[in-house]
């Protein structure tokens, strides 16, 4: 009974992850094979590569990986890749422009996954500051982008952001 209410941390030997032919994350956890696994970041803002909840296709938690670095290299790579896919959060490499038009704020961005644009109805409800110079942008449709450190961007981008953040 007690165990059910305890956080179960997975040891390196207990978990091995691979990707199926169909592109789905699968693996063996505590000796049992799962053909589909879902992964969650417990602290998406604070710890990107630590405290990862591993769940089966029915969303039941199998355990928590304390740090991706503790896993064997293949599992670690697969897990990191799956997190990248599941937490779709392109990192902004350049802010091309921020314009306010007809009551919408339009952002033209370059990200590490390619160029994109975002639209916001206002700024005060769509920009989060998780701490430091980090900025999370969320557009009207729920699409998100991250600026890891806006002070570290190029001068053009900083100029665009100066009056925004």
């Amino acid at each position, binding site marked *: 009974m007690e165990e059910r209410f305890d956080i179960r941390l997975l040891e390196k030997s207990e978990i091995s992850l691979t990707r199926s*032919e169909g592109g789905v994350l699968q693996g063996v956890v505590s000796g049992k094979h799962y053909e589909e696994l879902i992964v969650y970041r417990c602290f998406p803002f604070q710890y990107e590569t630590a405290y990862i909840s591993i769940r089966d296709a029915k969303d039941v938690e199998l355990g928590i990986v304390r740090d991706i670095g503790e896993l064997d290299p293949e599992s670690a790579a697969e897990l990191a890749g799956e997190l990248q896919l599941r*937490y779709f959060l392109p990192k902004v490499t350049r802010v091309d422009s921020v314009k306010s038009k007809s009551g919408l704020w339009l952002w033209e961005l370059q990200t590490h*996954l390619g160029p994109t644009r975002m639209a916001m*109805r206002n700024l005060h409800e769509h920009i989060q500051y998780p701490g430091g110079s980090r900025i999370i942008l969320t557009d009207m*449709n729920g699409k998100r982008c991250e600026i890891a450190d806006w002070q570290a961007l190029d001068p053009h981008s900083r100029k665009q952001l100066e009056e925004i953040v």
Partner: protein
Amino acid sequence: MSIMDQLPEKFRKQLTSKLLLSCRTDLLLDGSFGEQWIVVTEDTIYIWERDDKPKKTWAVRELRGARISGGIGGGKLIIDTSKGPIVAARYTAALASMFGFAAKFIEALAKEEALPVISERDLPRYCPTCEHPLGEGTQVCQFCMNKGKAAARVLRYARPYKRQMATAAFLLILTTLIELVPPYLTKLIIDDVLQPKAAGSALLVFVLALGVTTVLMAVMQTVRGYIGIWVGSKLMGDIRSDIYGSLMRLSLAYFDRRQTSQFIGRVNSDAESMRQFLTDGVIYVTGELLRIIAICAIIFSLDWQLSLLALLPVPFMVIASVTIWPKVGRRLYQQWRSIFRLNTMVGESMQGIRVVKAFGRENEEMSRYDGANLEVVRNNIKTEGLWQFIFPAFQLIAGIGTLLIWYYGGGKVLGNEIQLGVLMALVAYLGMLFGPLQWVSQMINWASNAIAAAHRIFEIMDTPSEVPDAERPAAVGMIKGRVDFENVTYGYEKHHPVLKDVNLRVQAGEMIGLVGHSGAGKSTFINLLCRFYDTDEGSILIDGVPIRQISQLELRRQIGVVLQETFLFDGSIADNIAYSKPDANPEEIMRAAKIANAHDFIVRLPDGYDTRVGERGHKLSGGEKQRVAIARAIIHDPRILILDEATASVDTETERQIQEAISRLVQGRTTFAIAHRLSTLRNANRLVVLDRGKIVEVGTHEQLLEKQDGVYRKLVDAQQEMSQIRGVGV
């Protein structure tokens, strides 16, 4: 056939059987931005990227089903085949609803069921013509629709006060013109009286004329000022009530996602900025504009060469204003946002002041506040500092014009080309001209403030209600109270359903107890019945009429709620009981209170039914509040009654009284009751057990207890265990 995006011809010609569905993703399978096509035909599913050759294909007969797996900010479409699950497509959150439909479509195809038909809500939210995203709940694009600029909309508020505004404007024109007289009189005095040393009545006449203009100006300014205040206050009242009206119209979902304390500031301060623009701004700007024109005309007639010289700096001022304008707007918004964050923080900690005190976190709250406060100070300095720079800069530029006049004008006087009076008049007029030009910056301030405020206000006004009223509501009249849930699915965030495919038929007058763990979907069930939210799929019918077709006013008239959190408004107990029926007479109020077991305790209060309750009034206990709320529901006399945990957190005796009141209340009404204490549901005709958003068991208390492994049985057992520990009977 269901086409969401027009499939390019080069792919279309490769198809061998009938096209059923084609859609375009905005991500590639490796998670980077790009386009990929997923195409469903009668026998095959294709995936194309940029190449002409399909990247992947699957035969439909291999399929077992399809589903979407939502991530954060995006998701993936998974096809289940006999060889295991396959990721078929990835997309950003913008396309979530479209792929939700695609998954359903492929699932139906795989299971050989009837193919679903696409509804408007599944379409991606982009404007088809300009590709800009569309707002929530609308298919009309902000960019393509000419809505008129914010300024024009603000001006519309002035329309009812046309006459007063016109009078004020007329007076303004007069004062402006009269203001121009004194320098001219000065010129006359110098040139015609002082210089020729012509004593006589002329001096007295000119001085008298000066006196009269001064008095006239004073009178007209007073009258105009009064009209300004009058129109301004009226306007502000109109704007405020409009904002409040829009707030009341918005659906519950809108407020769920926002902190409510922010709206207090919005209603008041944004309305004030708009008023300032309308009265001071509009009148001032037209007045000053007029003055500039008049002055220009006069000085040019006095000496056009000197005037041209003097006006040399003007273009620079105009250019400077135009470039500064957008910068100012953004800084003001930035400043507003930092104040907004500060206000929200205060609102939040005041609401949670008990928690703050209980955990002794006053210092932490203060340092949190200090952080936000610092931000406001920084932004204040930044924005206001801009003014401190603009002001002297404008003055400097204007000063150059005056210097030029003194130098060249002085030379002309010495050379006897013009008279001294003309020079004096020119200098005086120039002073008057540069005055308003300097104020251009102040006007920028006003106008940008007002436009920013207007944007925020119109944002509220333009937000469409997520539960729009039917255009032609069905007349239901006095309903009987039959309620049907048909395949109802709903999630506060789409694709994370809280209720899944719920079917329930409730007869008129029946009492239904809703049971389940917390988070099972009981409250959602009730929220949907009240139509605080609209179902994502399926429908709810009252007497066979879908509730979307019943006007909300009518619906709420038929539904009464007693909620867990009883909210009493500022006012007397009588007011609160008669909330839904303001014309109720004292007898009706007392009768309702009596049925609710509230009459006795109310009468015992020193102020009886006139006891003031609510925020600033008498504090009633939880049980007392509950009974007032029940009385409120009784006087409302609804056909459908909703009781949400009505007896939570009260002692046994109070509970008995409330129980008694409720049992009187439910008679003859269709009732839905939620309770954690299962004992409170013993009067229910049927119990509906919800688990993870699904109805798992339906039946009477006894029937459900007989199920050995039933969810209800487990709940009852668990409660019995708990109460044995506490030594209280269930």
